[in-house]
């Protein structure tokens, strides 16, 4: 997946001079996960900028660049280090279009690795996309594999509004997949039915897509046909695709790696309650992280949802 993202950045920078990259260690070493490898050699130090260690500074300066007409793509090293920049995002990046009624805009991308699964150090396994989905004026896309990662990033760079692109850490090197060579876009705000099914809808995104697909395999063995949806964008959320599926299957399992309370599973379950309650044959099941900080390596597996928990949740909906 790292390679697919790298290819997207190459294509975007090659096609459009306005695209500049900023981040800590993105140039000379190509970033913590080598996602930006080779870009500084190709496009120079002016366009691929190794910045000081200052997340608010990076996002705040990139915001100014975007207002001036560039298309900055910012890398933050880990989601847990985006918080120093949160003020810039919530107070300025997501607001300028509205507070100037379209006179000034900030088309920019903020991308970063997120999530657990590799037993990383404290602060390196965050999955707090609900914070950003809750933030008006920005869009939030979450990559679930190489093809989607590339397509979402290209769409984000082209988008007239600021977009946050989250990349599951554990997928950078884990997934191999055919990726179209050309600049193929995955539209923002459009979910994908990745695996059709008829008994239960499993709504997932990002790191949880692969777990959900594994769960669907297990369920198939047990005679349960699961439909798996990759949301791809958590804000704006493609509720129509979710609702249409739940209306057909009558059952829903909603999966997210982030914390439970006021998290993405709560939002999606509420949407199903509002719009598809009378189609439901069983209560909506939620599978998510806990309202704890993400445990360190030795206990991480109790926190991060996996295929077994998803399959068990789906089985419960079948019993109702």
């Amino acid at each position, binding site marked *: 997946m790292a390679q697919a993202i790298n290819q997207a950045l190459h294509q975007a920078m090659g096609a459009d001079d306005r695209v500049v990259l900023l981040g800590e260690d993105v140039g000379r070493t190509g970033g913590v996960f080598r996602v930006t490898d080779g870009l500084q050699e190709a496009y120079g130090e002016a366009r691929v*900028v190794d910045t000081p260690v200052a997340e608010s500074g990076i996002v705040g300066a990139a*915001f100014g*660049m*975007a207002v*001036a007409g560039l298309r900055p793509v910012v890398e933050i090293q880990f989601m847990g280090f985006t918080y120093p920049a949160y003020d810039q995002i919530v107070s300025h990046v997501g607001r300028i279009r509205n*507070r*100037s009624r*379209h006179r000034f805009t900030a088309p920019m991308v903020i991308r970063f690795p997120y999530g657990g699964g590799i037993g990383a150090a404290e602060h390196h396994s965050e999955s707090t996309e609900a914070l950003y989905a809750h933030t008006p*004026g920005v869009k939030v896309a979450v990559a679930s594999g190489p093809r989607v990662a590339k397509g979402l990033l290209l769409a984000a760079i082209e988008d007239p509004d600021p977009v946050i692109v989250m990349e599951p850490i554990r997928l950078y090197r884990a997934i191999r997949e055919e990726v179209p060579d050309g600049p193929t876009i995955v539209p923002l705000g459009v979910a994908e039915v990745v695996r059709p099914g008829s008994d239960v809808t499993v709504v997932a995104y990002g790191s949880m897509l692969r777990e959900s697909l594994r769960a669907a395999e297990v369920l198939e063995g047990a005679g349960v046909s699961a439909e798996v949806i990759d949301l791809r964008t958590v804000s*704006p959320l493609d509720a129509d695709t979710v609702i249409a599926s739940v209306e057909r299957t009558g059952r829903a399992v909603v999966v997210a790696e982030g914390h439970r309370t006021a998290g993405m599973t709560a939002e999606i379950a509420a949407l199903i309650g509002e719009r598809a309650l009378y189609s439901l044959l069983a209560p909506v099941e939620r599978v998510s992280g806990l309202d704890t900080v993400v445990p360190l390596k030795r206990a991480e597996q109790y926190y991060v949802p996996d295929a077994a928990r998803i399959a068990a949740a789906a089985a419960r909906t079948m019993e109702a």
Partner: protein
Amino acid sequence: MQPLQILHPDGTLAAAPPVGRDEARRLFAAMVHARVYDRKATAMQKQGRLATYAPFEGQEAAQIGSAAALRPDDWMVATYRDAAAMWMQGYLWEDLLLGRIGDERGGSPPEGVPVLPPSITVGAHMLHAVGLGWAERLRGEDRIAITYFGDGATSEGDFHEAMNFAAVFTVPVVFLCQNNQYAISMPVSRQTASATIAQKADAYGMPGVLVDGNDVFAVLAATAEAVARARAGEGPTLIEALTYRTGPHTTADDPGRYRSGDEAAAWRERDPIDRLRAHLRAEGAWDEAWEQGILDEAAAAIEAAVARAEALEVWHPREIVDGMYAEPTAPLLRQRDALLRDLGES
């Protein structure tokens, strides 16, 4: 560090002025005009026609003098208290008023005016000027950016990040700090133990300049030099303009609770408009009728701006979601429709 001074408080010259007589008269007229606006806005707030307003009386030289050093296409990122500087750079009084009336359309200056809507958060906006100036340099343009902020803002982390980025990347940006001695109720001694704010520039590797902020010539000269450095690719400058807000922090505040009347009275003696008037009068470049003419013209222009701002119709609730993205998203459209249903508008 001694502040740069060209006009003594009594209006006599300490050094040669940076501009000729016509330009000096233009600066005077602009300062008077701005004060008329400030007093009008304060009065309107008392009448309940504006939300809280942050008056800038006493700071006209710092704002007008610095903005006069800019080219019309230079970027400006300023705060809630910097209406005079923003107006000098092309922002309209009526748009500034609209913001205080509580209408987002006040955040949209005329097309081509390179001034961002005033920042309400303290500190974050300095970085935006860094990004704007940096973008111009990357494109090979010679536009620069200026950012205005108060002494309180220098305590924010973003002040450090902005100064640091600007210096590390030789960004064409001017940091203009109006040290008006207070951040709401707290004196500058509670913001920093440093003898001056200007000297902080040293640690970032950029020039820091201390000026008498009530001396419009000194502010203009210092800013012109900083702008020239930036335009020539020599990077950022920090300017600390020593000034005083003679009014309250905002119309919601009572300065009597935290500062003495004597202190305020002493600063009134250093009023920037009185100072330039004394100089112009000594030069034979001022008379009462001329100033009255400026006052009348300003009053008429500002009344017209008030009328335009107040005449603008409240937008239809249908438009409430329109500003968030280039196109409203599907969730926003559903929320809008639910609102319209609740309002019986459908």
